[in-house]
């Protein structure tokens, strides 16, 4: 990952303008909730929201890479479940915590790489390849755990969810660190540049000498790795690894990514946007809970926000064209 020249200042301005809009949406939402309920704007609730958002935010990192490359990954939720039960059983078998986590991350990465190979070498559309993996990984998780949750872990591992540094929950710190690193990779390295290039125009990328196949495969590997990372936090948080965990995570991650301004057509998008998108979803859910709104209404609201955000994108693109 060699650093490359930063993109032209005008492109960066354009991108931050877009992010500013999403950020303004988040701020408006927070102000609204602040006005409606005294319980929203408290330190403990804000930390609570950040902690709850961390899992979706981590999955959304991988999803952002994939979607920028003009792909899609439907298998993330199932990979969360599979990596989770591997982690859970390794911990219960007495493996040292770092080793157990490494095993889970490896399994997640392998699933992602298999997706990548199916898409590049097998020439399957990403939708189909990852749809298949969604079912395979879920089935493997259920088989491996014999359908049952694996629970009850020692305190050192649980610190990943319950631990606090200067009052900030560990999952929040881990997510923040991950975003800083992934943002650097996406914005400042060859791997990141190529991710945009492949998503923008795969044929042109190939003709200009980019080794598209290995890079694309690696992008899905990143998504699998991130899903496994989310599984680590989830397992620590619940003190349990469930083969049925992570259902619908793919849709939450896609939603966070597109609310954040990443185009499903590929070639554009940012991690900052994805993070804000994930926060908008987390804050919405939290706020609606605080207000005592039923989960049925919550689903409608989240759907409206997703559609609204993408409608704007599409409308603006048409005007620009």
């Amino acid at each position, binding site marked *: 990952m060699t650093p490359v020249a930063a993109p032209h200042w005008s492109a960066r301005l354009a991108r931050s303008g*877009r992010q500013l809009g*999403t950020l303004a949406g988040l701020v408006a939402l927070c102000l609204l909730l602040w006005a409606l309920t005294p319980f929203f704007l408290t330190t403990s609730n804000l930390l609570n929201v950040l902690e709850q958002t961390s899992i979706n935010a981590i999955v959304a990192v991988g999803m952002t890479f994939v979607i920028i490359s003009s792909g899609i990954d439907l298998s993330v939720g199932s990979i969360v479940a599979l990596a989770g039960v591997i982690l859970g059983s390794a911990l219960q078998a007495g493996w040292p915590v770092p080793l157990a986590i490494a095993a889970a991350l490896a399994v997640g990465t392998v699933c992602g790489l298999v997706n990548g190979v199916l898409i590049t070498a097998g020439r399957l559309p990403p939708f189909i390849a990852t749809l298949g993996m969604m079912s395979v990984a879920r089935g493997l998780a259920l088989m491996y755990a014999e359908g*049952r949750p694996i629970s009850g872990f020692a305190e050192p591992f649980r610190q990943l969810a319950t631990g606090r540094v200067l009052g900030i929950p560990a999952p929040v710190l881990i997510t923040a660190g991950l975003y800083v690193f992934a943002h650097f990779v996406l914005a400042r390295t060859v791997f990141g540049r190529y991710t945009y290039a492949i998503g923008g125009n795969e044929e042109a990328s190939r003709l200009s000498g980019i080794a598209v196949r290995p890079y694309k495969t690696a992008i899905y590997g990143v998504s699998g790795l991130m899903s496994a990372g989310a599984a680590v936090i989830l397992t620590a948080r*619940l*003190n*349990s690894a469930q083969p049925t965990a992570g259902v*619908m995570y793919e849709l939450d991650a896609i939603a966070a990514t597109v609310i954040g301004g990443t185009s499903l057509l590929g070639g554009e998008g940012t991690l900052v946007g994805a993070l804000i998108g994930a926060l908008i979803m987390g804050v919405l859910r939290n706020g609606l809970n605080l207000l005592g709104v039923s989960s049925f209404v919550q689903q409608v609201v989240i759907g409206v926000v997703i559609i609204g955000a993408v409608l*704007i994108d599409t409308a603006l693109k048409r005007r620009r064209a």
Partner: protein
Amino acid sequence: MRNPIRIQSAALRAIVLLLAGLAAVTAACNRVTQPASSGGRPRVAFVMKTLNHPFFLDMQRGAEDAAKRLDVDLVVQAAEREIDVEKQMQIIENLIQTGVQALCVTPSGSKEIASAIAKANRAKIPVVVADTRVDPKAAQDAQLTLASFIGSDNYEGGRLAGEHLVKVRQGKGTVAILEGIPGHETGDSRLRGFRDAVKASPGITIVASQPANWERDQGFTVFQNILQANPSLDAVFACNDLMALGAIEAIAAAGRTGKITVIGFDALEDARKAIAAGTMDASVAQSPREMGRMAVEAAVQVIKGGTPAAEQKVPIQLITKQSNQ
């Protein structure tokens, strides 16, 4: 500015999100319970497994009846999907933030709920558990304090079902079981009760026991497959009525209506109709409404400084064509 379109994009996006937020609030207005101004009324949160199952809707009704009678400010919430333990935990975390004085919960996962209850304990919010017991080991590991457990005796219910089956089939025949989501205390107890009751009759053999995850459509497909493998099956015990109703449709599709004894659990409205119509033999009735009522009453008792019984059993009974009339 060099880039007017981008700036507009920013503004537009903000406006749309604001509008979406406003829409949410408008939709919410009728349901908002104003916590700060509840003035002396005790505030109780009830977090259920789901609100798209008749069982929990009945429980909600019972809880609301009790809340009205005892002048309690009650908030009922649930995750979108019954098995979503993480979402249930989030809801509990969020409700803790609103300073409720007691929490009633029907755990989505008997082990996973421990982390959420531990958070309530830390916030000094007493917790009443209903319907599904917290796994004893998980409770012990997390050093939980539970104010009370309100639940049906699921083991006893399974045993009633098993005894009835033995009686109907006169002590012989092949039986299939449709299980709930594996690893759930509720389903496991029903299974144990049923197996223990059937074990006493050597003429009865359990030829298949498969999970159909509490759902009607899965009950249908899983039972269809079981029928394929065991064409001469005599009876089925489903750990809930939705799966039993699915099985009844599979039986009808196979043209074997009336030949297979079907016993369910929960005595839902649809199941009672099926019993009256003769397509279902029996169902074990819980009283979710009673359960909701008792849970809120226990919560109020704790808020007022009392100590409810650590465990309260909700009555359970077998519904058959005779008893249904």
